[in-house]
């Protein structure tokens, strides 16, 4: 899964770019079509108009793009080896709503209790699938079916659980109980 820079200035440029859960191609092409008098899809309603744009938000909310994720995982595994907890590696990105939902559940009363008792959490920023991909691959590439994706490691660094099947990638449609149930299954 690799995401190439989108420096596309000319027509008919083709590159390989990935999206959240699956590979996607990007292409710019030029064709011709009869001139249209107006949109013909999606029955037009009262036109909406653009609101003034807000300034960009903070550089990051959940996933630090500058973090040394490999070092953080190593430290967490060492801590897990010492205290018997496990490591919860959370692959995600700030743009991903489901990642925010997962974070909200983990920071809630039940989630905090579960994490405090059982896990050392490491958040790994995957950018737009162009960051920390080596770490993802080393841990079974759990992000191929969407983010957030969680990998659970024991104190030896062995994978003992993963949502590489996309099990949390639609967290926004899951209840807090359902999300936490997935993680409780991997608690030591």
């Amino acid at each position, binding site marked *: 899964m690799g995401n190439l820079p989108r420096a596309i200035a000319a027509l008919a440029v083709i590159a390989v770019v990935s999206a959240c859960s699956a590979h996607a191609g990007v292409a710019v092409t030029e064709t011709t079509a009869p001139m249209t008098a107006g949109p013909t899809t999606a029955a037009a*309603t009262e036109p909406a108009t653009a609101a003034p744009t807000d300034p960009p938000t903070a550089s990051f909310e959940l996933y630090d793009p500058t973090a040394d994720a490999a070092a953080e995982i190593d430290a967490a595994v060492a801590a897990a080896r010492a205290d018997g907890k496990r490591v919860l590696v959370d692959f995600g*990105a700030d743009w991903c709503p489901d990642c925010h939902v997962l974070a909200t559940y983990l920071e809630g009363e039940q989630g905090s209790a579960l994490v405090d008792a059982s896990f050392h959490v490491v958040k790994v920023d995957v950018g737009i699938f162009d960051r920390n991909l080596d770490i993802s691959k080393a841990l079974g590439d759990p992000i191929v079916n969407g983010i957030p994706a969680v990998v659970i490691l024991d104190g030896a660094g062995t994978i003992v659980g993963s949502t590489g099947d*996309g099990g949390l990638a639609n967290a926004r449609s899951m209840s*807090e109980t359902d999300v936490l149930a997935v993680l409780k299954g991997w608690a030591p």
Partner: protein
Amino acid sequence: MLFVGCAGHPAAVTTFDDAHVVVRVLVEGTGPDRTVVAEFDPTDPTAHLYGMELPDGGIDGSGRPTRLAVVGGDWQAVGPVTASVASHEIELAGFDRPFAVYPDGPVILRQAIHEIGDGPHDDPVDVTVTFMACSSKGVCFAPVEQQALSVPIR
């Protein structure tokens, strides 16, 4: 399909395909006053795009507005961008504000433009598009931000 209509001068359609959305852009009309029309069409029929009223960086960094902007060149935007469908709001856990989203499926944005100068009214129109699609039954796809496109005039 967006670009169908009366016979006559074929309009040049610039197509951009990324992050599970196909964007088709053309310029309608003749002379110095025209309209840029951009269709954002998610390849997943259960996917929605976000309302253009969403902040540039989304909410808490999440989501991205659907945007069409005329940038530089010999054409300037006139008036606001309009959308073919109205957005509605959805609430998600952990966010203190709702997200404006369009119904599942394609959205068409239109921007009136005027050529600066005396012509000959055949310079391409430089635009940028921004979007992010999310499936209501599956995952969200990575955002595409301020992708530059040059749309020929015919």
